[in-house]
């Protein structure tokens, strides 16, 4: 056996006084941290493979298990931190690109936490959302510049296809393959009941989700997996995925072992073959190519489906967003760099892109400066942790927000960041049948719905406090925001004042 060079990360502690040796942990840990002694009865622990997913902790009926950080000090060095040393060791052993799952854990500024919200006092009444209607219905799609009417009450305008959401929260793209069918189905069921949409990612649409096409956003990504006429037709809108916040400029790679029969059918690729999404779309080398693809997709769907373009938040995101709008995108989704992923090269995830707050503020302002903001919809993505984040994003200018990590957490994800291993103990980021069945869509859609309903309530509460009873009046209402501890430049980009001003 060779030297490991990297200490383990966690220690699983079993409280012998509480443990009843029921063996639940043994049967639940896909990393095989728990096992029985030779007597077949006494549960033992080997912490080496522990990823702190908490499956055993949460399942243990007596609370006998605890996961601790394994503390193993290195000589202090602010530059050569243990993490870099360990990553070097890992690469020295494998010669490979480091891969990680979920969004970046690095302590980059989170502007949501540096923005404060306003509320009404005296001069303007706050509104009680329990007594007054509080509207969060959101309509996405390209809008004509103006309405034309025959007379009051009779519209004659030719409206392009619109998407009506009962909440400004949608579920972001997570493909079947990167997540399990049960996970995707839970999101689809929740979306249907909530009046919002889920996103197939680039994994195609599994036949089991046929009942949910009304609330499906179907993605057309660089690999074109699963794309065919019915797929496009069976959707609420189509999304061209140019980039992803967690890995701008990088394609995707679903390893062959995750491509089982079901995944292979949905993606229309041979079973067991690697599903590789190229970094660029090989038919989009310029903005005019994007325009052609947008028009092709609209043609293919008889102009019945809005087309969204999803881009990663990169440095000149505002100009790119404007370009997309002018190329015919009805909806522009911007994915900030804290966004999640099933697997991304660690270096890319942790270093490329910009935060969604700045990207959103810049893009919204740019589109307004060009006078085209009201004709298209802007969707923000990239790590919304709570309803206040959503409210802030809408006030910065978003029409709607894409959430992925939060619903995953509602379904059991513990951010152990090992989605790439395919051994997700919560049945989310895995295709192993014995793990997938752990995620019961009948339970999980309820949990996801509860989460979004809770957020909806909170959004309404916050709006009510502001004296606003329609999310329309929150959108782009940056006067409702104040920065705290931000520099002049940051405030300028965000287009908000400092608290106290």
């Amino acid at each position, binding site marked *: 056996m060779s030297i490991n060079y990297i200490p383990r990360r966690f220690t699983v502690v079993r409280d012998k006084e509480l443990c009843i040796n029921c063996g639940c942990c043994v049967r639940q840990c896909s990393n095989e941290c728990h096992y029985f002694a030779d007597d077949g009865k006494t549960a033992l622990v080997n912490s080496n493979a522990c990823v702190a997913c908490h499956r055993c902790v949460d399942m243990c009926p007596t609370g006998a298990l605890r996961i601790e950080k394994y503390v193993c000090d290195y000589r202090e060095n602010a530059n050569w931190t243990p993490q870099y040393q360990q990553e070097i060791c890992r690469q020295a052993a494998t010669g490979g690109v480091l891969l990680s799952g979920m969004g970046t854990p690095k302590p980059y500024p989170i502007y949501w936490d540096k923005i404060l919200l306003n509320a*009404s006092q005296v*001069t*303007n*009444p706050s*509104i009680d959302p329990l007594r*007054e*209607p509080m*509207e969060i*219905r959101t*309509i996405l*799609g390209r*809008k*004509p*510049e*103006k*309405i034309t*009417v025959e*007379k*009051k*009450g*009779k*519209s004659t*305008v030719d*409206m392009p296809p*619109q998407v*009506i959401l009962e909440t400004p929260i949608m579920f972001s793209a997570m493909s079947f393959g990167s997540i399990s069918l049960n996970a995707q189905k839970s999101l689809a069921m929740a979306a249907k009941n909530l009046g919002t949409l889920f996103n197939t990612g680039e994994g195609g649409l599994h036949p089991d989700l046929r009942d949910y096409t009304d609330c499906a956003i179907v993605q057309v990504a660089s690999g074109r997996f699963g794309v065919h006429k019915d797929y496009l037709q069976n959707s609420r809108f189509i999304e061209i995925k140019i980039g992803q916040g967690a890995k701008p400029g990088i394609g995707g790679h679903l390893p062959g072992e995750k491509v089982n029969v079901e995944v292979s059918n949905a993606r229309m690729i041979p079973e067991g073959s690697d599903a590789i999404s190229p970094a660029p779309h090989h038919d989009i080398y310029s903005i005019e190519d994007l325009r052609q693809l947008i028009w092709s997709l609209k043609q293919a769907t008889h102009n019945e489906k809005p087309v969204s373009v999803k881009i990663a938040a990169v440095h000149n995101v505002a100009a790119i967003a404007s370009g997309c709008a002018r190329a015919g995108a009805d909806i522009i989704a911007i994915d900030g760099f804290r966004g999640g992923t099933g697997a991304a090269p660690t270096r890319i995830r942790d270093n490329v892109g910009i935060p969604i707050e700045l990207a959103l503020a810049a893009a919204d302002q740019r589109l*307004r*400066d060009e*006078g*085209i*903001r*009201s004709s298209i919809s802007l969707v923000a993505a990239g790590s919304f942790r709570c309803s206040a984040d959503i409210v802030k994003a809408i006030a910065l*200018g978003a029409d709607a927000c894409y959430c992925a990590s939060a619903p995953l957490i509602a379904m059991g994800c513990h951010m152990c960041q090992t989605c790439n291993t395919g051994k997700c103990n919560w049945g989310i980021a895995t295709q192993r049948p014995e793990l997938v069945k752990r995620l019961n869509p009948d339970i999980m859609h309820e949990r996801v719905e509860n989460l979004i309903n809770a957020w909806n309530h909170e959004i309404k509460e916050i709006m009510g406090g*502001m*004296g*606003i*009873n*329609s999310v*329309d*009046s*929150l*959108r*782009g*209402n*940056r*006067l*409702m925001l104040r920065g705290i501890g931000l520099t002049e430049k940051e405030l300028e980009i965000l287009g908000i004042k400092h608290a106290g001003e």
Partner: protein
Amino acid sequence: MLKEGQIRIPSGCAIAAIIDRKGGMINGSEIIKSIALMHDRSNGLGGGFAAYGIYPEHKDDYAFHIFYENSEAHKACEDFLFRHFNIDAAERIPTRKVDSIENGPDIWRYFGRVNRVRMNNSRLDEGEYVVQCVTKVNSAFDGAYIFSSGKNMGCFKAVGYPEDVGEFYMLDKYDAYLWTAHGRFPTNTPGWWGGAHPFNILDWSIVHNGEISSYDTNRRYIEQFGYKCTMQTDTEVITYLFDHLIRHHGLPLNVAADVLTAPEWDEIDRMDKGKKEYFTNLRAIYSGALVNGPFSVILGSNKGLLAVNDRLKLRSLTAATKGSRAYFASEESAIRIICPDPEKVWSVSGADPVFIPLELDGKGED
């Protein structure tokens, strides 16, 4: 201390209006009496009036009312005005001394028509040309402020209680077929005359009571289309919204009112197909123009008078009619003091704007 345009100042208010839809003339003393009754709704930091039909002899000319804070501004502004318009008459607006009103600017008015050569060169239509000239003066000429720019109408405003402002401008000498009035209760003391209401652009004038919570949404919406909200007041943004919807999008006044106070989705969902589609489209296209928060607005124009209340009816606004006259005021008493026996009195509801069109037989209309 920052004045309007440098800071957003919320305020409470009293508003009142009288219209004779047949074009019958009403003396200024009436509207003063009405607004004066609501003395306690203002705090002496702003009052004003708009009057329609007061300049019949100049009815085809733009009437510019301008505050000058100094002679440099006066000169620069006049130069600009004379270059862009063919000005027929220029005079100080007559005022009388009122104790409570002091430190006022020099107040002038001009009558004239657009300079067609310049206008054609600018490739703007006439309305847009005038608006841009006014915006230019107000944003670029420090110390000069055009506060009235319509035809056959004029705004009169100052820092003070409205009844004192009326006295100051000698409004008992004016007769108009449409009056609006405003008494202001700002929550700080900018002491700037330009900040008083009504707010006017072309012949649209607005008096407004309330504080709209959708201000920045509305501002950022309207600013996409070339407007610049220099005053940072609700009244300004509402005026621009109306101007944009009516002038640029060609919407009837009552459709524009629907945009600002669109019904709730609950209500829309219950409507028949045609109406549902109308309001859904309206809300989808004009989500940025939906006005939220408490407000009551009276929009005056040469087309008539529109009274709008917020969707939740958070601000009071009472309407009454008698004969060819219609009365509006924040409080019913302010109507009854000048019209003790109205035929009909009602509270303007959020969902149902009131529009009183003028039927002037071509008398006041372009």
